[in-house]
């Protein structure tokens, strides 16, 4: 059944190629119908777990290359929420493409992204996982930079890093295949576990190859630069997909392979060094997650481009999720997955709001915007609720997942990790308010006076997302019940949760009561507001120039919009230790180019050089032969 869905995806993508350029949006309607269908099928399979399917391809000398899929609870959960969110994004992009005669190619490759998305989540063995991983990297290349010159520099960080990671993963898969003679993930990590005691060097090397593969995709410390570039340059609706869903594949990879491995080590601690109840390796990885979130938060505080800011906040949230996953307690993993899902929901909402702003104003720099709330109320509300959820404030779903992560960290006795997470969550509040103020509040520039609200088709996904954020915030049980089934599949004891209350060893929270208290106090404030004398509406500018016409003073509304260097003094605190990893990657690329040039130079410049090389090579061969014999 899964194979049919994938095949139909590919067929429809070819069908969509023949739609004429003018009816571009029809392609997107096709795309959202396809998504609706897959969503329906996914909903049908919600409790038919462990149903697997395999398509035999090629058997070269006993090596049978076959694609086989299995619906695991983890795979089902991830694919369901990703397809649901992509469906919302596709409704948004139908409207966005009505005007534009965008390239035929983008929608063509969108289909491949979805096909590889389903493929990755339902992959049962390494081969299928790797094939769809490659397919996703290649097709996302074309969608991120559909022919804009500037976007190539941005996308090539992403592309080079993820291909490097993918091929290192292939190396790891090769090694595991060497040991277990089969591609199945299950036997892979059990073999690796036994290998830890026999030959620690090789096993560490294999785990590092897998870590490289997954961490490049989910942008953790050494590879955290590509989301900021890729999101800023990608088409707006795709950056919602990119940060909502595509960055989660790395985490899904961790959950698929690394977490079961570390759980094995944790349960049977043979030679492995156990610190604080979990293997040293996963402790280091959770520290990597924590450091990424702190650094990403401080970089987000400094960024002035709204999409870069949102991208950095994605990197920070991925940092929390990785930290809580690698604590390996049942609360940790549940908190991590919960954080991934809630982050996907509110980040899609934020990015769709940003896309709506860009659709109307074609402007990305925050200081050039301002005061759009008065003109675009629906987008403002979505953005506001998204901000509240991202900062983890109670009534919204962000709070529930943060609460889980804190329970995991505190009950697991990781004081310093909790501080890092707390620092980045308060920091999150800082840059989120900066975005809210510079785009929506403050002064409305003259040129945006006639900006209207986004057409209704774009508002539908916003309403749905708002409702979703509130719903999962007030009733966290909706998401936690499937997560429990995932925990059982990891054979950890599930988290005690009813639909609206979450229990843990330290304390329990009834989010329904929390929501009711907040609405109660809001009603109290509203009554108080009505008691006071009614207020009079006054134009902001009349206030400052006391009624005189501000134009005489040469004062325009933009001058009153404080947004450019919002936290400038705060940034100066970090001037002394500012390392720029982008510089490092650029210089590395330049050096590789120079070395290549030197080689080419030495050839084609003149035969004199080539003869030197020739002698050098001859001597080398003779020396080599002489030494080795």
């Amino acid at each position: 059944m899964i194979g049919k869905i994938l095949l139909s995806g590919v067929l429809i993508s070819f069908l969509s190629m023949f739609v004429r350029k003018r009816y571009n949006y029809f392609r997107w309607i096709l795309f959202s119908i396809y998504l609706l269908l897959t969503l329906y099928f996914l909903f049908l399979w919600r409790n038919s777990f462990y149903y697997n399917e395999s398509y035999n391809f090629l058997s070269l000398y006993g090596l049978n290359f076959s694609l086989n899929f299995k619906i695991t609870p983890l795979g089902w959960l991830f694919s369901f929420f990703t397809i649901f969110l992509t469906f919302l994004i596709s409704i948004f992009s139908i409207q966005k493409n009505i005007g534009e005669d965008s390239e035929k190619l983008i929608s063509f490759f969108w289909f491949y992204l979805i096909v590889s998305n389903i493929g990755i989540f339902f992959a049962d063995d390494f081969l299928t996982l790797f094939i769809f991983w490659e397919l996703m990297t290649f097709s996302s290349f074309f969608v991120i930079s559909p022919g804009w010159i500037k976007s190539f520099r941005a996308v090539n960080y992403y592309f080079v890093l993820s291909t490097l990671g993918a091929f290192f993963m292939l190396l790891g898969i090769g090694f595991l295949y060497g040991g277990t003679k089969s591609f199945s993930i299950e036997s892979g990590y059990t073999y690796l576990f036994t290998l830890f005691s026999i030959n620690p060097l090789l096993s560490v090397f294999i785990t590092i190859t897998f870590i490289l593969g997954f961490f490049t995709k989910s942008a953790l410390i050494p590879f955290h630069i590509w989301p900021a570039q890729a999101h800023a340059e990608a088409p707006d609706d795709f950056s919602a997909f990119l940060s909502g869903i595509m960055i989660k594949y790395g985490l899904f990879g961790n959950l698929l392979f690394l977490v079961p491995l570390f759980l094995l080590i944790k349960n049977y601690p043979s030679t492995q060094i156990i610190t604080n109840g979990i293997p040293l390796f996963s402790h280091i990885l959770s520290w990597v997650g924590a450091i990424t979130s702190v650094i990403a938060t401080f970089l987000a505080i400094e960024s002035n481009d709204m999409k870069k800011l949102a991208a950095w906040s994605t990197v920070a949230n991925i940092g929390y999720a990785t930290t809580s996953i690698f604590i390996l307690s049942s609360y940790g993993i549940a908190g991590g997955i919960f954080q991934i899902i809630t982050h996907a929901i509110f980040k899609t909402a934020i990015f769709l709001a940003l896309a709506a702003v860009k659709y109307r104003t074609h402007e990305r720099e925050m200081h050039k915007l301002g005061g759009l709330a008065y003109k675009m109320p629906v987008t403002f509300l979505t953005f506001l609720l998204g901000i509240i959820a991202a900062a983890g404030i109670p009534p919204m779903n962000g709070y529930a997942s943060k609460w889980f992560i804190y329970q995991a960290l505190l009950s697991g006795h990781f004081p310093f990790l909790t501080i890092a997470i707390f620092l980045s969550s308060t920091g999150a509040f800082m840059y989120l308010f900066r975005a809210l103020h510079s785009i929506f509040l403050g002064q409305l520039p003259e040129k945006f006076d006639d900006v209207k609200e986004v057409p209704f088709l774009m508002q539908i996904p916003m309403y749905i997302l708002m409702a979703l954020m509130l719903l999962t915030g007030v009733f966290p049980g909706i998401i936690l019940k499937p997560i429990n089934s995932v925990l059982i599949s990891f054979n950890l004891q599930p988290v005690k949760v009813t639909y609206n209350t979450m229990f843990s060893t330290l304390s329990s929270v009834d989010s329904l009561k929390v929501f009711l208290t907040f609405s109660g106090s809001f009603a109290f404030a509203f009554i108080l507001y009505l008691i006071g004398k009614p207020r009079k509406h006054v134009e902001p500018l009349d206030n400052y120039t006391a009624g005189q016409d501000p134009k005489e003073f040469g004062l325009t509304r933009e001058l009153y919009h404080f947004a450019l260097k919002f936290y400038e003094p705060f940034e100066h605190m970090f001037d002394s230790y500012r390392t720029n990893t982008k510089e490092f990657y650029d210089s590395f690329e330049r050096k590789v180019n120079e070395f290549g040039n030197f080689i080419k130079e030495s050839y084609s410049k003149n035969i004199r050089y080539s003869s030197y090389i020739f002698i050098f090579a001859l001597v080398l061969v003779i020396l080599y032969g002489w030494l080795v014999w």
Partner: protein
Amino acid sequence: MMIDNRTLYIYSFIIFLIGIYGAITNRNLIKILVSLSIIETALNIFLVSTGYINGSNPPILHSGMKLISPNSINISDPLPHALVLTAIVIGVGTTAIGIGLTIKLYNHYKTLNVNRMGDKDEL
């Protein structure tokens, strides 16, 4: 002093090395081609010397010789001679093409010095 196979091998190898040295270190294109043909001659000497058997007669069947069994006649092995023939022809062919191309190159660059041929714009 009878020159047997061993010394011939060493001589041909030395000439071969001289040819290689010439091909590498020379600047003038014609000299490079000359050293290529030196290598060819070294090869031919080497090939012929493999067929030589000490104290044997040249491998020409004249009327008087009776053909009883191959081992009894004391003649050197004719096969390398045939090989050398084709090798010489091929050597001539390559050198001819080489010189033709050098003439063309000379028309372009107006110099035979290899160093000054590499001009920048073609990179």
